[in-house]
């Protein structure tokens, strides 16, 4: 036994020594990646000292890229628009494996047991499950909602029971696929409403919400009681009001759950909607600077940070959740695309694409702690996502 363990550690030492990087033993809990979308690379960063450790090129078209993490938080699975799925080792900063799995992909998620990484695709519409170790295809579920008709898939989230929930933009449905038997997935379909554009699952994995573009309202599915079907909440929340144009689709992913309330972007209105999660009714609306894109709660739920669609994408606003008032308006740079909190919320990292930088703010004082150069940065994804349901 001891001999075997010794052998194994010698082997891993050997492997590490074989790499270009210095073999420093370290954890991955404070690591993450910043997507550099124009150059098709990611920067590996660490948020304890707020530094960049190096970059990994060769990841293809990274517009609208999404990252999810392996169960051990060592590997980042990077999904690119070109259908690329790349497994990046945060420690060695190398590509472990890269495949082109679809024509057009927008993201993915890892299963509860960590063995499957599932991609959601626009083209060909559907989801595909891969072995998280080898990236070999295990099974797939084409989003064929009517004979010969395929839908773009949005809002994919992993939920307990080896299940994945997602919405079909063109079909107006929510599907739940169970991968307990990975090679023979079973899918249940639910009618949801017109043009679901993204989805999110509550932190406990119980409720899946899909925002609707084609109508006012949000489709809600209680995964503890799927037999009850999808319920429409906030139905017609903007009735009688002229809709404002939406120059970029909002994103729902991000835990915007704070103190029993969900904070969500309105569509075609410059407002953040506050929903009471006990009754699933509207509790308030917070007027903001533009069409919200990301509405993200600081991990303790005390603040909600909001960024905006073009042409208001130079601003970030902070909402105090108890008073539901905007307490701070920041201008972190041109074309703010994403925000990511450190695991306990002391800092938030904000990317400004057209200023080629990432700004790290202290969330209590709003002071700038650090700015890091990056080439057209978009998404920022920290490794603690590995331990969250629905990321």
């Amino acid at each position, binding site marked *: 036994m001891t001999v075997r363990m010794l052998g194994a550690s010698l082997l891993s030492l050997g492997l590490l020594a074989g790499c270009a990087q210095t073999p420093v033993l370290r954890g991955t809990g404070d690591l993450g990646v910043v997507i550099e*979308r*124009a150059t098709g690379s990611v920067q590996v960063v660490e948020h304890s000292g707020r530094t960049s450790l190096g970059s990994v090129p060769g990841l293809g*078209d990274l*517009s*609208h890229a999404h990252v999810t993490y392996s169960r051990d938080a060592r590997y980042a699975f990077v999904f690119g*628009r*070109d259908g690329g799925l790349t497994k990046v080792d945060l420690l060695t900063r190398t590509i472990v494996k890269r495949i082109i799995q679809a024509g*057009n992909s*927008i993201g993915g998620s890892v299963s509860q047991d960590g063995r499957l990484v599932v991609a959601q695709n*626009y*083209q060909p519409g559907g989801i595909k499950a891969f072995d998280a170790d080898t990236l070999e295809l295990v099974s797939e579920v084409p989003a064929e909602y009517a004979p010969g008709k395929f839908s*773009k898939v949005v809002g994919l989230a992993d939920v307990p029971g080896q299940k994945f929930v997602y919405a079909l*933009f063109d079909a107006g449905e929510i599907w739940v696929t169970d991968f307990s038997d990975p090679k023979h997935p079973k899918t249940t379909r639910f009618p949801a409403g017109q*043009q679901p*554009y993204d989805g999110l699952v509550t932190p406990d994995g119980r409720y899946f919400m899909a925002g609707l*573009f*084609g109508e006012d309202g949000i489709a809600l599915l209680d995964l503890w009681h799927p037999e009850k079907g999808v319920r429409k909440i906030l139905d017609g929340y903007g009735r009688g009001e002229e809709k404002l*144009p*939406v*120059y*970029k*689709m909002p994103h729902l992913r991000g835990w915007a759950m704070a103190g029993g309330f969900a904070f969500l972007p309105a569509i075609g209105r410059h407002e953040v909607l506050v929903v009471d999660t006990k009754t699933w009714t509207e509790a308030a609306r917070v007027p903001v600077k533009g069409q919200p894109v990301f509405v993200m709660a600081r991990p303790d739920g005390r603040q909600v940070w909001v960024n905006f669609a*073009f*042409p208001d994408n130079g601003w970030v606003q902070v909402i105090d959740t108890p008073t539901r008032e905007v307490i701070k308006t920041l201008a972190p740079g041109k*074309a703010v695309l994403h925000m990511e909190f450190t695991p306990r919320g002391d800092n938030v990292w904000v990317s400004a*694409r*057209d200023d080629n930088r990432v700004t790290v703010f202290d969330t209590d004082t709003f002071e700038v702690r650090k700015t890091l150069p990056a080439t057209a940065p978009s998404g920022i994804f920290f490794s603690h996502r590995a331990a969250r349901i629905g990321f």
Partner: protein
Amino acid sequence: MGFDRSLWLHVLVLLGVAAVAASAQAEPATERQRELVNMVRQDCGSCHGLTLKGGLGPALLPETLRDKPADALVATVMMGRPGTAMPGWAPFMNESEAAWIVQRLMQGFPPVAAQMELSK
């Protein structure tokens, strides 16, 4: 040889007409062209893809746009398409700028970097 000559004349006349049509539609100034290219790649790109191969919105490539009337596409860009996710961009550009974008899309859109080189 008279036949050949009149054919050439036709071609020349046609070329002339095309040249006039192209110059009648004033090209945006170089700096503005650069802004428009960046806008198309980045902001239109958020729905149509940075490479314009499609996303939530359809691909905007020469082969997908070829058979569509340019003025209808210009109207789509300016006014959007009600009932779909395509918004109208009239607050951010004028009609001749939209026409320039559509023309460039139909030819194959210049990459941001190449355009930056051009304007240097």
